[in-house]
């Protein structure tokens, strides 16, 4: 091959290139992009390995498990009252909401019902958890797009809600306030008024975020039509909560299968959006915060008097049986499947956490999207790592 001159080589390459242009697509070399485990967009430590073709994702593989704490195993060696401390830490931004379905499932097996006042206070605290959780999402979504201001507003205004949770339960993040048969304590004096005051601040925050983000042209171009989840795909993957409602599924556990909480007494609305894109998921969550603030107002006004604790045995032994109770948590449907053999501890607890199912759609959803959209899609799906890893 010594006779091949540079000129011939160049001609050969040019011919190949011409052929390629005419006949086959130009093959670009694949690249693997590793996002995380400690990426600001991951709310913890989720790692995403994305195979790229140019700017497009060919295959994305989320790697979870960096925070797996084995709660399902741990519940088997703890008594029922001890478990609420653990499960508080599943979705750490809406901790109280994690306790409720577990307690409700245990109450169902014991055939105990909490007094009405306890049910109402549970509902108030549940909605406060939702607000404090979703406020952070609303601010955080701006960060995913490079807007830093909203997240400071979010952290500022979330305090108003956390202050109320702390005043009632003693803990800002991990109340551990729910008990089988009711609540640990009644509300402090003057709490209802100050809570209603903080709801006004929450509404102001929603207006502010709407002004800052929702109308922004950059926000709209980055989220509209991005990461579309069709209704049927959402159902198959078990998307729940705002993610499902943004895909046009008119379903809310609070309305359709409410167990042991005060939602049927309230006047509120389930918001849905038909687009199924990142924008819809953001929009639905804004409406949900407003709706939750409305509910808290109504709950504070109509709170019935009475005891907050039912008569329960001093040593909690749950009769043998199985129960599954799910509630509409800030992130979606969260349920506990409890199998009891009549012991001090459950025999098996299956924790159905919302983020686990919400994230299982990512390999499907990220296929074919552009690299910058990975971040907005993940941000708009909104997951809490503790809720994936449990």
């Amino acid at each position, binding site marked *: 091959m010594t006779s091949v001159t540079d000129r011939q080589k160049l001609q050969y390459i040019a011919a190949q290139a011409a052929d390629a242009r005419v006949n086959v697509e130009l093959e670009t070399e694949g690249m693997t992009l590793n996002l995380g485990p400690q990426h600001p967009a991951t709310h913890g430590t989720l790692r995403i390995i994305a195979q790229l073709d140019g700017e497009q994702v060919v295959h994305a593989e989320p790697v*979870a*498990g960096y925070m*797996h704490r*084995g709660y*399902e*195993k*741990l519940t*088997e*060696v703890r*008594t029922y009252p*001890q478990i609420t401390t653990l499960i508080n830490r599943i979705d750490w931004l809406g901790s109280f909401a994690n306790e409720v379905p577990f307690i409700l499932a245990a109450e*169902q097996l014991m055939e105990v019902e909490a007094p009405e006042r306890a049910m109402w206070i549970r509902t108030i605290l549940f909605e406060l958890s939702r607000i404090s959780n979703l406020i952070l999402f609303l601010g955080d979504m701006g960060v995913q797009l490079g807007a830093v201001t909203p997240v400071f507003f979010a952290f500022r205004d979330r305090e108003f809600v956390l202050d109320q949770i702390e005043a009632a339960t003693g803990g800002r993040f991990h109340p551990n306030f729910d008990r089988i048969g009711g609540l640990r304590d009644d509300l402090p004096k003057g709490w209802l008024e100050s809570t209603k005051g903080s709801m006004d601040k929450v509404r102001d925050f929603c207006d502010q975020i709407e002004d800052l983000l929702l109308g922004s042209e950059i926000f709209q171009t980055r989220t509209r039509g991005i990461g579309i989840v069709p209704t*049927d*795909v959402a*159902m*198959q*993957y*078990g998307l729940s909560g705002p993610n499902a409602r943004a895909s046009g*599924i*008119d*379903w809310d*556990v609070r*309305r*359709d*299968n409410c167990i042991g909480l005060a939602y049927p007494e309230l006047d509120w609305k*389930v918001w849905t959006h038909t687009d199924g894109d990142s924008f819809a998921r953001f929009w639905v969550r804004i409406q949900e915060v407003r709706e939750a603030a409305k509910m808290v107002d109504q709950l504070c006004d109509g709170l019935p008097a009475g005891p907050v*604790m039912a*008569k*329960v*045995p*001093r*040593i909690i*032994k749950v*009769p*043998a*049986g*199985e*129960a*599954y109770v*799910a509630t509409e948590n800030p992130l979606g*449907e969260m*349920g506990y*499947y409890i*199998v009891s*053999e*009549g*012991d*001090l*501890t459950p025999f*098996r607890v*299956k924790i*159905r956490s919302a983020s*686990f*199912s919400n*994230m*299982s*759609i990512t390999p*499907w959803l990220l296929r074919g999207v552009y690299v910058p959209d990975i971040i907005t899609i993940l941000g708009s799906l909104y997951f809490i790592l503790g809720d994936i*890893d449990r």
Partner: protein
Amino acid sequence: MTNDAPAAEATESEEVAVDEPREARLAMISESLGDMLVDSHIAVGRDIWVRVSTDAWGEVADVVRNRLGLRYFGFLSVIDWMPSPYGRSMDSEVDIVLADAASSDDAAEEAPDTGFTRGVTGGETRFQAFARVSHVGDPGDFWGLTIKADIPDDTLAIDTWTNAYAGADWHEREAWEMFGIRFTGHPGLRNIYLPTDFEGNPMRKDFPLLARMVKPWPGIVDVEPLPATDDGAEEGDQ
């Protein structure tokens, strides 16, 4: 093993009550499932359980999704019915006292054995797969169903649900690594939580919870006054 009416081994004493909508749903379910259905149970006002035969597990997913319209996939997991050889690891001081108090309190009423050994729908094998699917229709039209199936002790394998419900993918991966159950036909059973070189299946009952074994929990600092010791005037329900 009959396939209609609440299961014979129902533990609750509520067979007298009848749950009309759930009975109607169960009738519909048993009609669609035919002889794939092994057992069923209704907890009045609460929930429906069905148990299907092992071989039909994969087909059942297709039937409940496409024919019965239970299109929403809740979760899928496995349960290990073997009693834990390590007990409850209730070995710290506070737990022992609590357990003693509990056993002395209810000794009388605990005597009739409930026969609850494999859950509300019974079963023969050590492992059972169970899944939860729901029907999401118009507002207010929402109901769920728990489906179970025995997993053969010799093969420890059962069909995958990923063909009917794509979301079963991660749930089956989790069940595979935690219980060592193989889901035949799953596109890629890889570890999801555990490191790839992890040995053992942590959620099996015979997998020791080492952290609990080397150090009793909770520590002595956590001890509160025990409920049994202080005066129970206002809520002595026992």
